[in-house]
């Protein structure tokens, strides 16, 4: 089952790359995504029941934390693959495109290559979430960078090339630092007998954590945090994120923000787990809290007055990664809130990025200042965009309200309850800044030069609608098995 989760997207991707026809690839993508989601659900069920599957001598052995991110990646990929049907059809129809930024003309990459790399991207993310081996996790996180770089460069114009280059260099160098973190981790455990037949490195590190050399372990965590933090978009290492998210096709931005950032977070969480087991949890928690607040403040600075709505969503991802770091850093109920936040953020951000693609297709501009009257020109997208704003800003009754409240509760119960003041203040600033841009776009009159049609393809609004409904339901009612699963995942990292 675990091997199938890797082979399914890899083989589908290879078939697309070598034999695929555009139309066939477009149909095969959601079919493969559905099969992957069903397999992921089966793995999640096994882990929930306590029969966690293992494969390849323990290289694949997911735990509740990994399975949670696997399910998220799988579900978001399914939503994106359905959205891709109308998106790719429209891209094919247009043929020769004009870059909005410099008005240069460009063509897209061949569609079969794009869909193939989407499959490889899914495979590498699946490996990240399923392996307890820190080295394999590193290799697969680097593989996510390499498989997603061609996706960011789907529109072959200067701006996307610039974004792709920044993404490649910053993330590769960052991940190289994480590799150094892995080496330092091995130095910290040097001398402890390692079973060579078993690759469950994480269990070994956790069970021998009390014997690890503290100085090297602390150094290892710093490098893991900085390295994977660059990939996760924690400020001040976030520079690639707004560029890549704004220049990638919207469905790729949705996956980058909703699924990829979680994979990088998982790398940091593994380090935090080991630090907690070694009795050094206070140090890693303090670092996470520092980066959390720094990210929150950076996002607040850049979102205020931000005209580019895709960059605004990207900075919102920086904000939410900061919130996750904060919640995990404070531990206890805040940690449970952070895990719940990861779920709700992924669903909401994927929804918003898909909608941003609809807006871009209709208005042909990135500037929120040039967009008016969405409620008249595209009523479905306009309504969902407004709902998505309320969700991402943490308003009731959406799931993010609950998770942000839990994090606040955790901060108030901590040794430094006064930190709840800057936390709430920054969230308030972000709420106002986001509302100004989003409501400006939705309200107002229909622009005179816009076509009268309000028609929107079903596959472009259905996935965001379902994602939005899921976040709404999670805000009102969390099924007991899901909460129990989230709690199990949070327990691994001090929740």
């Amino acid at each position, binding site marked *: 089952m675990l091997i199938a989760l890797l082979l399914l997207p890899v083989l589908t991707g290879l078939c697309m790359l070598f034999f695929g026809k555009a139309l066939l690839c477009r149909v095969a993508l959601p079919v493969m995504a559905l099969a992957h989601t069903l397999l992921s659900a089966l793995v999640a069920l096994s882990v929930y029941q306590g029969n966690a599957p293992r494969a390849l001598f323990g290289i694949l052995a997911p735990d509740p934390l990994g399975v949670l991110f696997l399910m998220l990646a799988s579900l978001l990929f399914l939503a994106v693959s359905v959205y891709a049907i109308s998106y790719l059809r429209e891209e094919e129809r247009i043929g020769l495109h004009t870059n909005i*930024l*410099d008005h240069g003309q460009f063509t897209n990459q061949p569609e079969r290559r794009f869909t193939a790399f989407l499959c490889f991207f899914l495979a590498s993310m699946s490996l990240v979430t399923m392996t307890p*081996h820190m*080295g*394999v996790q*590193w*290799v697969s996180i*680097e*593989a996510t*960078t*390499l498989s997603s*770089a*061609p996706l960011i*460069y789907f529109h*072959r*114009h*200067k*701006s996307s*090339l*610039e*974004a*792709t*280059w*920044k993404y*490649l*260099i910053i993330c*590769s*160098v960052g991940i*190289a630092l994480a*590799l*150094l973190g892995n*080496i330092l981790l*091995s*130095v910290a455990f*040097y*001398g402890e007998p*390692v079973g*060579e037949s078993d690759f469950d490195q994480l269990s070994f590190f956790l069970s021998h954590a009390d014997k690890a*050399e503290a*100085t090297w372990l602390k150094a290892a965590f710093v490098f893991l945090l900085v390295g994977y933090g660059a990939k996760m978009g924690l400020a001040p290492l976030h520079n690639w994120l*707004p*560029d890549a998210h*704004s*220049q990638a096709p919207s469905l790729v931005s949705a996956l980058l923000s909703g699924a990829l950032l979680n994979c990088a977070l998982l790398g940091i969480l593994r380090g935090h787990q080991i630090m907690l087991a070694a009795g050094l949890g206070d140090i890693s928690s303090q670092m996470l809290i520092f980066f959390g607040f720094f990210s929150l403040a950076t996002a607040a600075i*850049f979102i205020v007055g*931000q005209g580019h709505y895709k*960059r605004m969503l990207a900075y919102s991802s920086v904000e939410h990664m900061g919130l996750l770091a904060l919640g995990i850093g404070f531990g206890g109920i805040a940690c449970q809130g952070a895990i719940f936040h990861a779920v709700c953020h992924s669903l909401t951000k994927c929804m918003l990025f898909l909608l941003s693609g609809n807006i871009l297709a209709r208005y042909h501009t990135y500037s929120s200042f040039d967009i008016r009257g969405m409620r008249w020109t595209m009523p479905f997208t306009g309504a969902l965009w407004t709902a998505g704003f309320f969700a991402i800003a943490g308003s009731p009754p959406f799931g993010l309200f609950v998770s942000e409240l839990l994090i606040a509760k955790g901060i108030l119960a901590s040794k430094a309850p006064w930190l709840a003041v800057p936390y709430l203040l920054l969230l308030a600033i972000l709420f106002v800044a986001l509302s100004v841009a989003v409501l400006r776009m939705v309200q107002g009159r229909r622009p005179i030069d816009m076509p009268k049609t309000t028609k929107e393809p079903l596959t472009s609004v259905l996935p965001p609608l379902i994602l939005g409904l899921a976040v709404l339901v999670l805000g009102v009612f969390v099924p007991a098995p899901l909460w129990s699963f989230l709690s199990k995942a949070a327990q691994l990292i001090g929740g």
Partner: protein
Amino acid sequence: MLFDSCLFLLLVSNFLLLATPHIRQMTKYTALQGILLALLLLLFGHTILTVAVLLIKGILLPGLLWHTQKRLPPDSLICPRKLAAFDVVCGMAGLAFAIWLDDRLIVTQELFPPLFLSLGLTTLFCGFILIIGRIKAITHVIGYLVAENGIFLLGMPLMTKGTTWFELALLLDVFVAVFVMGIAINRISDSFASIDVARFRSLRD
């Protein structure tokens, strides 16, 4: 003796990399580093990895860089001389810091041979200096490779027979990364008529 000579040559190659403004020369020194790493692996007794590192870091990766350079105009393959001088000074500071740090860290004696840790850290610093200090896209790739060589060096004493498969996966990853970066450099050259990353100004807040 051979072991120490390899370490010395690696250190020299780092400073040659920082001192030269010519990208073709830098590629040669990168290949030299790959060969020296392979030799060190042989001395550690890792035969399979020796072959793999020699093939990938000593031949294929520099070959990829050569191939990329062939398509670029010759004048784009020279960095400003002033930057090179400044980079050497930074490299010296990096070396001094690495020796100072090595002296203070508590390391199990049998794990790192003398000066091994300092050299690994210096190589890593030199890689970062090349990435931050130079403005050509291809020097970013060379810097990434050098930094990765430093990390590889630090990991060398920890390698066992059981970890060979992982090291091979790592090498494959680095190879693909440089391959993708090579393609990107060619596209940058075609689109911007230069590989100067200082021209990347369209995406700002």
